[in-house]
């Protein structure tokens, strides 16, 4: 080994040690995820209850993650998830609500919808559907009916049935803090 090569290797080794020491001395800043406009709209309008990643308490709040896409298996299911009161009457614009619905169904909701070639919602479709929010009493019973049709027609995941099957304690009604 020539002296020049030995010096070069030694200087590289020293640089590596210095870099390692610097890395140990300066603690890494915790990573904060950057959210897209659609994610912000989902989180501030839906994600508190449905969960940041679409999973929350499944008996109290329907799970979205890997499940919501299944509703697009039937025409009734496709309309149902837009006509739900908190969706239809949300403060989001038609355009942003459409983006959120497509993100929930195709990204958060898993490959169930996309795999069957379901088409994305259009702004006109969402605008029309949200003008007819579901108002019947017994919304949970109606959901069971919609899910039963989805299950009869497609290979729907079992998790679709969990919501409404049995309520846990403490979900009867919200009460103000003292």
């Amino acid at each position, binding site marked *: 080994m020539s002296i020049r090569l030995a010096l070069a290797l030694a200087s590289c080794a020293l640089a590596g040690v210095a870099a390692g020491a610097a890395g140990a001395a300066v603690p890494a800043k915790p990573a*904060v*995820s*950057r*959210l897209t406009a659609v*994610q*912000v709209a989902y*989180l*501030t*309008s839906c*994600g*508190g*209850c449905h*969960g*940041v990643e679409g999973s*929350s*308490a499944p*008996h*109290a*709040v329907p799970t979205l993650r890997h499940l919501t896409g299944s509703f697009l298996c039937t025409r009734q299911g496709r309309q149902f998830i837009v006509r739900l009161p*908190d969706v239809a009457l949300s403060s989001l614009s038609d355009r942003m609500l459409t983006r959120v619905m497509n993100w929930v169904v195709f990204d958060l909701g898993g490959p169930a919808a996309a795999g069957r070639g379901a088409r994305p919602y259009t702004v006109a479709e969402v605008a029309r559907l949200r003008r007819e929010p579901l108002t019947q009493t017994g919304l949970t019973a109606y959901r069971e009916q919609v899910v039963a049709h989805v299950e009869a027609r497609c290979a729907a995941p079992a998790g679709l049935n969990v919501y409404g099957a049995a309520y*846990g*304690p*403490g*979900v009867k009604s*919200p*009460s*103000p*803090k*003292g």
Partner: protein
Amino acid sequence: MKRLDVDNLGERLTRRLAGRLSRRSALARLGALLVAAPAFPLLPVQRARAADAAQSKPKGTDFSRAAQTHDDKACNYWRYCGIDGNLCSCCGGSMHSCPPGSQPSPTSWIGSCINPDDDRAYLIAYRDCCGAKECNHCSCLNTDHAMPIYRPQANNHVIWCFGTQSFEYHCSMAVLVGLAQ
């Protein structure tokens, strides 16, 4: 009565100027004036009004302008811009963990707060810890982005213990969800 002779007056003024100033001097002064003009405010009234408009729309919220970023046991810590309840940081827990003996609720409401260190908005999940007697330390009430009770999804006065075993309220966390901008 002698009439005002404008022609004569103009001629005398022009001749006097011509006698004192050279053409080069006049051109140099005119050039300097043209170059310097943009440095001065040409429309002082309009600029004053623009300044007023900028002052009337300060950045952030009243809370964020007075917020701090070092003490998470004080109500004016930046993440608490929409919190209502006892700070878990004062109850044996932290901003993102429940005190021993209490259970984090899987549901929450999500608001956004501005971090004064970088002037950016971050989403914050206000998640309650439930199933233990109320802590009653560091009780705070801030209302940025909180909505009235008829919009319960974003109401901070509701006990957010949906989905837990007990509805007994203990304290509130402020979990950082992500950067909104």
